[in-house]
């Protein structure tokens, strides 16, 4: 049996221990009230993080949602754009075929598997349009997607009171997008129509 849980309580609650180490903590805590309390406190802290992270609306409802909803389309399409595999216009509302193509490409799957991503919304978007950016947690890539307009929009990095123009979205049917390989974290992006900033997104890392 381990001596006392100590710092392992946090690792236990975060899932940073392997199964055997977790079992050892459980066994020890069953006979050590102080360590049981320590584990409980660490579990409270991680639970607070999970709660803050967001709770799905309806776990059972998700399965009944229609196929190829636009929401599911975003990550699949962004993934494909990342490796520039297919003309994106063919992918709209074809999530299943995208999936099949993805599965056939080892290199791409490897890239996707290792590509954890985050998203941020641009707001406020005018005229019922919506836009978001998906990006790598290290700032190595960004995909800006604008739904509901074919009009090209400029994307700028807002920093230190300045705007650095990054590129222009390209229309792919009902969606326009821009893939931006980068080497640094950008914390604020703007969508621009000419010289006018129409929406901004704050990116958290």
């Amino acid at each position, binding site marked *: 049996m381990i001596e006392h849980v*100590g*710092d392992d309580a*946090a*690792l*236990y*609650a*975060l*899932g*940073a*221990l*392997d199964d055997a180490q*977790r079992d050892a903590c459980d066994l020890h*805590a*069953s006979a050590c*009230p102080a360590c*049981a*309390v320590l584990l*409980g*406190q*660490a*579990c*409270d*802290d*991680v*639970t*607070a*993080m*999970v*709660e*803050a*992270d*967001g*709770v*799905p*609306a*309806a*776990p059972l*409802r*998700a*399965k009944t*949602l229609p*196929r190829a*909803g636009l*929401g*599911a*389309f975003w*990550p*699949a399409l962004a993934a494909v754009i990342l490796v520039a595999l297919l003309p994106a216009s063919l992918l709209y509302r074809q*999530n299943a075929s*995208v*999936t*099949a193509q*993805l*599965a056939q490409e080892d290199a791409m*799957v*490897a890239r996707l*598997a*290792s590509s*954890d991503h985050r998203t941020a919304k641009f707001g406020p978007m005018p005229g019922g349009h919506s836009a978001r950016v998906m990006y790598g*947690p290290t700032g190595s890539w960004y995909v800006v997607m604008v739904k509901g307009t074919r009009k090209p929009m400029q994307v700028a990095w807002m920093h230190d009171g300045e705007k650095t123009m990054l590129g222009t979205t390209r229309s792919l049917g009902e969606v326009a997008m821009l893939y931006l390989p980068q080497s640094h974290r950008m914390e604020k992006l703007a969508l621009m129509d000419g010289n006018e900033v129409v929406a901004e997104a704050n990116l958290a890392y």
Partner: protein
Amino acid sequence: MADGDGNRDLATAFAARERWAFEEAYRQFAGLLYAAAYNVLGEAEDARDAVHDALARVWRSPGAYTPARGALKSFLTVCVRNEAITRARSQNRRTRLAVRLAAEPVEYEELRIGDPIESDRLRIALAALPEEIRRPLELAYYDQMTHVEIARALDAPLGTIKSRIANGLRRLGAAMRHA
């Protein structure tokens, strides 16, 4: 406190393996448990399986939970999250991705409706931590890396990483409670 979610009776009955308590715990915490699994696995069916398997394991193991372990809600959340992490680690990454993408699509917006104020609290609390403490904590929580992997990734001694993660989680928890 036996149960931080204010339900000592439920925690006690759960520890005594009364069936109603199991059902009630599931009813009360299903959304949170699903979120804990989904946030790790990113796939609805897999997340549901992880919740089921974790709860079944707890239920099959007499003494797994006692009120001394603190809030039942937190205990179950961590059990489910750990189950999800174990699954994620054991699955072939390629297979996991293929399954994820081939799965019945779910509405992204429907799945991520976290309270923006709560999310901001977490982000702000994390941002307030010094980099050397925040980074290992982020790698543990968001990337589900083991402490050994984190130590290797950050090129730091294992003991240092362990104490930084523990320190970071304590500070983060305190900051979120008092925010």
